[in-house]
């Protein structure tokens, strides 16, 4: 599928393919949810053996495996199935650089996506992110681990692009699994990073960060970034990565103002997220990400670069600039940086 953004250039074949691709997605995330790729990791297996390992119906997995093979996520030879290169390296649990938890998280949100017609009518998601995190341990685990999986590369690239020399204290607001906190600490020797997030999230972060060389310069601070004070002129850098898309506009203005107060003069606020064009229809990934936010947040969406700049300006920030992060990836993002004068 290659949905081209843009006026009237699409043909009906694109549209039909679009619907078909939706099915392909369901096939892949379901397979992740069931643990198909771990089952296949122990060598080529016939469908019945896969069914036995997964504890599923005997006939159904064969059909699923055939579809996975057709999509390039499995190989079939002589009635036996094995992982393909992509599924072998990305979709087994514990494989470095893998994205299994992320796709399991997508799978857990499938029932909510199914209710999109109702959500468009009422504007209210079936369960909000806050409720999911508070009530559903399976969701919380796959959500946080899934974010860790896809955060490593952008975190390293972002940390490498920031002017960190002389920075002593950084605050990572809602830093989740700690990928960004870790990348900052590794990038700048001597930098102390405070990671502020909810207690159950920090439990996972603690596990993920154990053994990391800069661990003792990362402080895990339990709190709720809506309420817990950030402090006054205590930091040289405040990072908000992938949290503003969960909030409404008023909430984000408040966060930007509080970050200003928390920074020392000369300190910087960095906002990292999916960012949209002025008319909110580009890039495609961001515009569709907004729909994803509709499905499980009450007010979130992807915002425009112009909105971030305005909020920062109004809070008093100067020398505001922005740059792309992981430009070659489908889920490319941007960072906006502003300085407290």
């Amino acid at each position: 599928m290659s949905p081209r953004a843009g006026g009237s250039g699409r043909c009906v074949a694109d549209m039909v393919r679009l619907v078909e691709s939706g099915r392909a997605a369901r096939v892949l995330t379901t397979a992740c949810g069931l643990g198909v790729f771990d089952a296949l990791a122990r060598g080529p297996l016939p469908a019945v053996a896969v069914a036995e390992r997964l504890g599923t119906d005997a006939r159904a997995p064969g059909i699923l495996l055939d579809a996975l093979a057709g999509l390039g996520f499995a190989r079939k030879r002589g009635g036996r199935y094995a992982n393909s290169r992509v599924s072998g390296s990305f979709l087994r649990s514990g494989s470095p650089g893998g994205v299994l938890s992320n796709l399991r998280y997508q799978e857990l949100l499938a029932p909510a996506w199914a209710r999109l017609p109702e959500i468009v009518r009422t504007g209210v998601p079936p369960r909000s992110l806050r409720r999911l995190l508070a009530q559903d341990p399976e969701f919380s685990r796959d959500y946080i681990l899934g974010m860790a999986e896809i955060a490593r590369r952008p975190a390293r690239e972002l940390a490498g692009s920031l002017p960190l020399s002389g920075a002593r204290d950084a605050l990572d607001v809602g830093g989740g699994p700690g990928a960004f906190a870790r990348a900052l600490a590794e990038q700048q020797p001597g930098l102390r990073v405070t990671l502020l997030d909810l207690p159950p999230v920090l439990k996972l972060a603690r596990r993920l960060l154990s053994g990391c060389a800069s661990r003792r310069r990362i402080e895990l601070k339990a709190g709720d970034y809506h309420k817990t004070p950030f402090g006054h002129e205590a930091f040289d850098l405040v990072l908000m990565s992938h949290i503003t898309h969960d909030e409404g506009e008023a909430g984000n203005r408040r966060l930007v103002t509080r970050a200003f107060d928390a920074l020392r003069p000369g300190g910087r606020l960095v906002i990292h997220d999916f960012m949209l064009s002025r008319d909110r229809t580009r890039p495609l990934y961001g515009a569709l990400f907004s729909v994803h936010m509709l499905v499980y947040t009450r007010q979130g969406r992807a915002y425009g670069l112009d909105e971030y700049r305005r909020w920062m300006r109004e809070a008093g920030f100067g020398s505001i600039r922005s740059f792309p992060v992981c430009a070659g990836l489908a889920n490319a993002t941007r960072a906006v940086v502003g300085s407290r004068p």
Partner: protein
Amino acid sequence: MLTSYALDFNKLAEVVLAYRSSKPLLVALHYDLFSHIARGKDTPSLLGRGLGLDRRALTVLLDALAALGFLSKSNGAYRNSRLASRFLVDSSPDYMGSNLRYQELTWDAWSDLRFVLKTGKPRRTLLDWIQQGFFTPDYVKAMGDVAREPARDLARRLDWTGVTRALDIGCGAGTYSAAFVERAPRLSVVLLDLPSTLKVTRGLLKAHRHGRRLSFRPADYLTESLGDGEFDLALLSNVTHVEDEKTNRRLVAKAVRALKPGGRLVIHDFVVNEDRTGPRFPALLGLHLLLFTGKGAVYTVKDYAGWMRAAGLGRVVSMPIARQSLHPSTAVVGVKPRP
């Protein structure tokens, strides 16, 4: 240049992007947004008020549709793209809304894939849905929307010499019968399907210019007779994929009985290659059927030819249909021997 990591990662990201791309289109058709936009309700406020939808949610949805190329946006108002005007506005002759609304109805079943894999059984079968009258008009029209091109191609490829009576078993929207009578001037066709389906079929074919050569026989092809020695040609188009092998063998035998000696049985359907992993569309259709019918499947040409020979048909051949289209299908034809 993209790294190999980026190429592999993007292959996965594309799949995630896929469900986020398809669902907004289906939801838009659920509310027929493109038709309303064509009639001047072109802002989130106008649409929201007119249809009772949430303004914030609608704005996000419309922006996504613009990102996908179905709308263009300027100064907060939206306009249909050329593609949307042609296929997604209800007053257009090429309207595909029924099909996409049907896809929207099936989304729930697809969301349930994980459960179905555990149990092997759909929560509700296609027949349950049809009998409840839940989406019969949309379902039948949907099948008609996509059948036009293969129906024309199949009619073109069959030899109509001496063929005067045909039976269309499980005729659905009647698109194949309609194409057949267009092609064969002396042909009349009996369209056989469930009464609730035929109600929709009659409506769709009311104004057909060869309508008097079409007659309707309400029947359940599973339990009732299909006739005895009456027809020169019997068609099973996209019927066999909703049934299991045993039922299909029985159905083929019944169809053979309905044929005159020298008559032909035509099975037209999507087929998979011998290892059943491709082409992509029929391979995914196999799962779709698992979710809906609990018994249907996609079959190979070899399967069909085997059932036909077992039922006594000879000179079995297969031919590709609508080869240039996005979803090519196949016809398998067998001849009932003369005594």
